[in-house]
């Protein structure tokens, strides 16, 4: 199978559903909190009672405009809603209010980093629509239950152009969208809870072909890793089918993460006709220029801008700046640390080194860190001003992580200040030299590498507190005598 792959190319388009983090639903005042008891967050409008009418939650317009701007896209005005008709128990009205002709966001793009440099992926559109409820099949003795808490939760569906060619590019694109929605604070982007969902349209064709192959749509891919694996599986499957002389059926497939396969969804023989038509209960919305400008004024600095600033303002490497800027919370933490420590490079090293390791260890997010930015800043400050050595700092870091003490409290309480008094260091060195006459002789007869041994012994004698630079300087002088 893999041998064939060189002759083929994949064409991938992603449809990403982002659940917007509004307090209330898209067209009703009911709460959108996750995890409430079934049907406790569904009002008359969500239940599609006779006679109820939708009223747009204006907050979603602001959110969509922000996303549009972050994707370098056009904002349509007027933008309008349409009804998408289909019968399903978790769709209480028998239609979903969505957008068809005039999506709020249209014609944008996103630049992603690939092995071969920066690649621009077109974003066809992003439109607002309401989420469905959930059908529950397990707990009702052969009957089904319906929970309409999620019904009416606002979604933005972001549709890419079919300009993605590898699973890795797909993940880079998805991560970039994830980073943007988190930056804009329009969604928590939690894929496991379903607040960001990704459907992948995949087709393959012989390299050089200009016509697109038949595509499949893979649903239910709920992590970055699964997106990569599902797409890879689907590409391999399609190539294999075609190489075996079979055809690809245009269908919707479900990804099974346990088996790492995709399989066709129970599909109807006929295609769904959604009979879209303009939603008569909602008038087209004019987005005044002033309103758009007002929203844009509230846009935060985006990851790309932040990365550039980190490089120029803090002199960070591209790599460090990229890693820190990708996550808004991490970037904010970094800047808060720098504010206290005044040392960007050391701060970046500590965050991506010790801190990340601890966070990963305990599976915590940066916001759940057991060391706050002020503490880490203080710690780095104490290294910079010579109060402690880097080695001691690591010990203090461990203590900060597991206690609620402050940096200076630990340093003073445990006498961890660095020894910087020349006299004191000299006397420690004298003692070490006196205790090791053999090594001294060997050193003086040309065994230079024993210098390290003496440094080690002095540091040990000082319990790591001696200033290493001073130790080096004084030791060198003494040994040369």
């Amino acid at each position, binding site marked *: 199978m893999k041998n064939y792959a060189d002759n083929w190319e994949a064409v991938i388009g992603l449809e990403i559903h982002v659940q917007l983090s509004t307090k209330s639903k898209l067209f009703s005042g009911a709460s959108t909190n996750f995890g409430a008891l079934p049907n406790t967050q569904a009002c*008359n409008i969500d*239940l*599609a*009672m*006779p*006679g*109820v*009418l*939708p*009223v*747009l939650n204006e907050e979603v317009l602001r959110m969509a405009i922000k996303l549009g701007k972050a994707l370098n896209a056009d904002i349509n005005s007027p933008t309008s809603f349409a*009804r998408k*008709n289909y*019968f399903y*128990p978790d769709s*209480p*009205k*028998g*239609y979903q209010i969505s957008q068809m002709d005039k999506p709020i966001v249209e014609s944008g793009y996103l630049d992603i980093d690939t092995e071969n440099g920066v690649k621009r992926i077109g974003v066809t559109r992003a439109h607002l629509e309401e989420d469905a409820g959930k059908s529950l099949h397990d707990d009702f003795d052969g009957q*089904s239950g*319906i929970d309409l808490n999620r019904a009416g939760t606002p979604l933005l569906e972001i549709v890419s152009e079919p300009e993605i060619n590898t699973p890795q590019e797909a993940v880079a694109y998805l991560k970039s969208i994830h980073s943007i929605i988190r930056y804009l604070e329009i969604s928590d982007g939690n894929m496991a809870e379903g607040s960001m969902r990704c459907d992948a349209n995949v087709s393959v064709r012989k390299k050089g072909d200009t016509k697109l192959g038949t595509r499949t749509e893979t649903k239910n891919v709920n992590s970055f890793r699964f997106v990569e694996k599902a797409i890879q599986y689907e590409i391999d499957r399609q190539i294999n089918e075609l190489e075996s002389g079979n055809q690809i059926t245009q269908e919707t497939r479900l990804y099974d993460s346990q088996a790492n396969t995709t399989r066709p969804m129970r599909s109807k023989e006929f295609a769904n*006709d959604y*009979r*879209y*038509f303009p939603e*008569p*209960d*909602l*008038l087209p919305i004019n987005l005044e220029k002033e309103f758009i400008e007002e929203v844009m004024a509230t846009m935060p600095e985006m990851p790309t801008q932040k990365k550039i600033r980190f490089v120029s303002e803090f002199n960070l490497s591209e790599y460090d700046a990229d890693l820190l800027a990708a996550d808004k919370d991490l970037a904010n933490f970094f800047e808060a640390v720098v504010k206290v420590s005044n040392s960007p490079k050391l701060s970046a090293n500590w965050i991506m080194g010790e801190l990340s390791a601890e966070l990963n260890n305990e599976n915590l997010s940066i916001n759940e860190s057991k060391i706050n930015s002020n503490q880490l800043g203080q710690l780095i400050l104490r290294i910079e001003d010579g109060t402690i050595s880097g080695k001691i700092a690591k010990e203090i870091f461990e203590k900060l992580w597991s206690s609620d003490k402050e940096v200076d409290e630990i340093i003073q309480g445990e006498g961890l200040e660095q020894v910087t008094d020349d006299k004191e260091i000299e006397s420690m060195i004298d003692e070490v030299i006196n205790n090791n006459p053999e090594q001294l002789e060997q050193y003086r007869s040309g065994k230079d590498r024993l210098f390290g041994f003496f440094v080690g012994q002095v540091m040990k004698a000082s319990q790591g507190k001696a200033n290493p630079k001073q130790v080096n300087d004084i030791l060198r002088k003494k040994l040369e005598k």
Partner: protein
Amino acid sequence: MDLHKLYLSEQLEGIKSGKFSSTELTTHYLERISKFDEDLNSFITVTEDQAIAKAKKSDERYKNNTNLPLDGLPIAHKDIFCTKDVLTTCGSKMLSNFEAPYSSTVFEKLDNEGMVMLGKTNMDEFAMGSSNETSYFGPVKNPWNTEYVPGGSSGGSASCVSAELAPVATATDTGGSIRQPASLCGLTGIKPTYGRVSRYGMIAFASSLDQGGVVARSAADAALILEAMCGHDPKDSTSLNLERPDLTTNLNNPIKGMKIGLPKEFFEKEMPSYVEKSIEDAISIYKDLGAEIVEVSLPNINLSLPIYYIIAPAECSANLSRYDGVRYGYRCEDPKDIEDLYMRTREEGFGNEVKRRILIGTYALSAGYYDAYYLKAQKCRQLVANDFKEVFKNIDVLLSPTTPGTSFKAGEKTNDPIAMYLQDIFTIPANLAGLPGLSIPCGENAGLPLGLQLVGNSLEEDKLLQFAHSYQLNTDWHSKMPDIS
């Protein structure tokens, strides 16, 4: 005293001055309902206990001088308006067991003015019909002659006001459902500008056409109640962002010097001589009152019926999708699976006319047909609206018959949907353009009343009512009531 002979303002005055109480007035109507409605079938639900309780509270308020503007006046509500904890059926088996968990804005507004609900009136199923024969709760009879239909879809509202079982009733109009029954029952019925009256809690038939209004015994009565129903409602996104209009202050202003347009396309149609005669008489009365009569042309108006029978069914096909037996309303027995639940619930729960329109609408919206039907109909709708815009640059109101003739016998058109649809030929254009329209009694034939339609420019309900009131000050067609005893 024949309390039911008094107009609303007189009833209000009577209660205020202590001549009679709201309880007496309410009881009087409830007695008439129990006496006459078995035959007419104009009510689906009579809320007797609630009505008397409300009336008593109203009387207390008068005692405490805390009375509300329309306090103690009885009213009947079309069963399309949701009323909390009271059966709201929309004339359908589908909702035959449905007690609304909330009240419509229209009900709330009138309730807040102190009005006393007598009950919920019969109607064509989901407001689809022009004879009130499609109701699951049986046909409604015309009080002028019980072999004849009262019109529809607000047939119950028209029938009960005409029989004086209620002094006034709410109604709704999607293609003529207020004006046509008003015409056939000898009443004043007004449909305001689209967006004037909130649609929240008014069960949807065709969202872009539906509009609430009233049927009453006079223009003055209609003005009093319609005024209280109007006003912006944040719960309805299509509700106009305007204050409640003043429809009563200028009612007595003369219409001298104003212009009435006669749409030549309407008058080119063949009409019975009694219709022609009644309209001519009305025109000469308006002339005497100093109005100027001009012929106008609405070149696209004859497209109205086909446009309507694309757009209304299309919207209804989606609006009625929620009746699936899952959450409320009728559910078929022992469904095998979800498909079976949908199919049988809807098969058994909807009547034929509703099914016919759902099918037409579903077809018109289908892939491959959308552009030819729905999209084209929307474009033509704009042409009709533009025609109106053009003529209203030069005239104040448009005058025409409301209906092609007087009422027809029950069963006469039930097997001929097209003939039934033609009932609304004069009324539909105002819905397409979202304009206010009213019908007032202007004649009779063989003991059955006939109506005259006035259509006004957007938001000019006040002017329409002024025209209607002037006419009623100078004629007595509106004061003729059927003898039902």
